[in-house]
């Protein structure tokens, strides 16, 4: 356990910019934007999205707010907060993809592999520490950022509503459940497992290929083309697309929307065949990574 914790701490020290600073900076920027909007300092409206208080001038919206029951408010708040947190999740996702592609390639390139392997840590433990970091630890690091953003957004909105006599200050807080934090962490954990095959593939490419980007893209491109030409199907591309998206898209119709997924729905993912296909594929790739890392001894001075 001490070894695993040490290995994970090392990764966080090395990749603190992508895993710790970047999501925090994004959180701060988003928080500032929201505060500015609610306190009338700015108003962002583009064709793609808008951050504005103008909607609260709409009669229909005001009427809905005055009459909505607790469940309806909760649903709307959840939806808004999920969308709000997406840039943070996206930032970490990009950091994870970059990390996965480079982690085994870089240690070979800068020859630190020699030092790491001179210590009593097995290749399997090293690989698993990186997998655990991505699937288990990073969601825990992302969570405080999401919570911070949530609280700042809700507090700003509450002050805005109260000072403008739209609804009372407690309108939001009565509908906001702090158990949602558990919901978020479970969703992030399950999402990490859902996307694990992609991460494992990138790590695998970094472990075996001299040029990891080429190693990651070329075999996939070849197989996709061959599949298209020979079988006239598109399964591999669809698989990649699925794993890049939210795991909830694979759930039954009534749960299709991420916004209503609850902790109690998570077991549904474990019932899907797709999930287990991904886990099996990931396990095979992890085995491959361990194999290639253990064979990377091309650093003899002779």
């Amino acid at each position, binding site marked *: 356990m001490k070894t695993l914790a040490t290995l994970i701490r*090392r990764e966080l020290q090395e990749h603190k910019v992508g895993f710790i600073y970047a999501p925090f900076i994004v959180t701060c920027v988003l928080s500032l934007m929201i505060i500015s909007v609610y306190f009338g300092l700015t108003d962002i409206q583009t064709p793609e999205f808008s951050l504005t208080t103008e909607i609260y001038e709409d009669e229909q919206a005001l009427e809905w707010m005055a009459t909505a029951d607790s469940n309806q408010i909760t649903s709307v708040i959840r939806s808004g907060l999920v969308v709000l947190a997406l840039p943070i999740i996206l930032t970490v996702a990009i950091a994870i993809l970059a990390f996965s592609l480079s982690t085994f390639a870089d240690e070979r390139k800068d020859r630190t592999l020699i030092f790491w392997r001179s210590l009593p*840590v097995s290749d399997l433990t090293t690989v698993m520490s990186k997998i655990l970091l991505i699937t288990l630890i990073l969601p825990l690091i992302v969570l405080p950022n999401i919570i911070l953003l949530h609280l700042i957004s809700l507090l700003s909105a509450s002050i805005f509503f109260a000072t403008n006599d739209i609804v009372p200050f407690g309108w939001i807080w009565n509908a906001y459940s702090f158990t949602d934090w558990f919901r978020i962490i479970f969703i992030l954990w399950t999402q990490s497992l859902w996307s694990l095959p992609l991460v494992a593939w990138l790590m695998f490419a970094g472990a075996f290929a001299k040029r990891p980007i080429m190693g990651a893209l070329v075999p996939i491109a070849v197989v996709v083309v061959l599949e298209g030409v020979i079988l006239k199907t598109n399964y591999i591309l669809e698989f990649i697309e699925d794993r890049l998206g939210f795991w909830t898209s694979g759930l039954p119709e009534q749960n299709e929307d991420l916004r209503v997924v609850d902790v109690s729905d998570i077991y549904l993912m474990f019932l899907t065949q797709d999930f287990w296909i991904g886990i099996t594929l990931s396990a095979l790739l992890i085995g491959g990574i361990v194999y290639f890392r253990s064979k990377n001894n091309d650093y003899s001075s*002779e």
Partner: protein
Amino acid sequence: MEREFAVKAKGVIKSYDNSRALDGIDLEVRSGQVLGLIGPNGAGKSTFLQAVLGLLNTEGELEVLGLDPRKERHKLLQKVCSITDVAVLPKWMTVEQVLQYVDGVHPRFNLEKARSILSLTDIKNHSKIKTLSRGLVVQLHLSIVMAIDAELLVLDEPTLGLDLVYRKEFYSQLIEDYYDGNKTILISTHQVEEIEGVLSEAIFMNQGRIVMKDSIEAINERFLELRPNQDSLERARSLNPIHVRKELGREVFLFEDIEIDKLSGLGEVRPPVIADLFMAIMERTKLEGQQ
């Protein structure tokens, strides 16, 4: 229980495509020895040391501290330390982070001892490794290794690229502060003259084979070098030296298994330095190969 041999190798072979980096290595290294692996580039020194560390798969029998390095590498590395290259400490880390890391993964690492050793150097704990000079990086690596209670230390060209001062410091620190007579040390280096004083045994390697292996004591008894007086040249030549080299215009004769009495009076007699002996043995091996 004290182990008689730290390393036992029998018929160890490492093949790459059409060549053999190790071509049937037979070797027994007694515990507590400081063994030098001496040979030109491509001799197989690093390959053998990597095999000892379990970093390479080899054919033949290989036992290190009673373990098979190919199958029990993880267990073995708890008892073995190595410096296989000077440029491998992660540059992004601070000195303290490296110490904490090794402390977290190595059960035999003594963090306080490492800090105490480092406090005697110019290395600051908060310094990033990328800001340290090459010499200081080696010193840091050696400090880490010295704080590990290992039975076997493997040094593969540990001072490569260092200037003379750091090279000297490295070996003097290694022997004075680390070597306690119980630890076994395997060193491979090109700078033979610098390790000569610290070795208890030497192995000469060439083309994946051991050309000669002996204790320094036995080498000094077996080989003698003569710088003959001008009038004793012919007499010296008639005693069948195994090698003749020129030094500042004077011929120097190397003899094997000769009584010192036969040479006394012919000139200056002394044991050869390892580097010169190595050159002589290599030339002899080359000639034997041509015949």
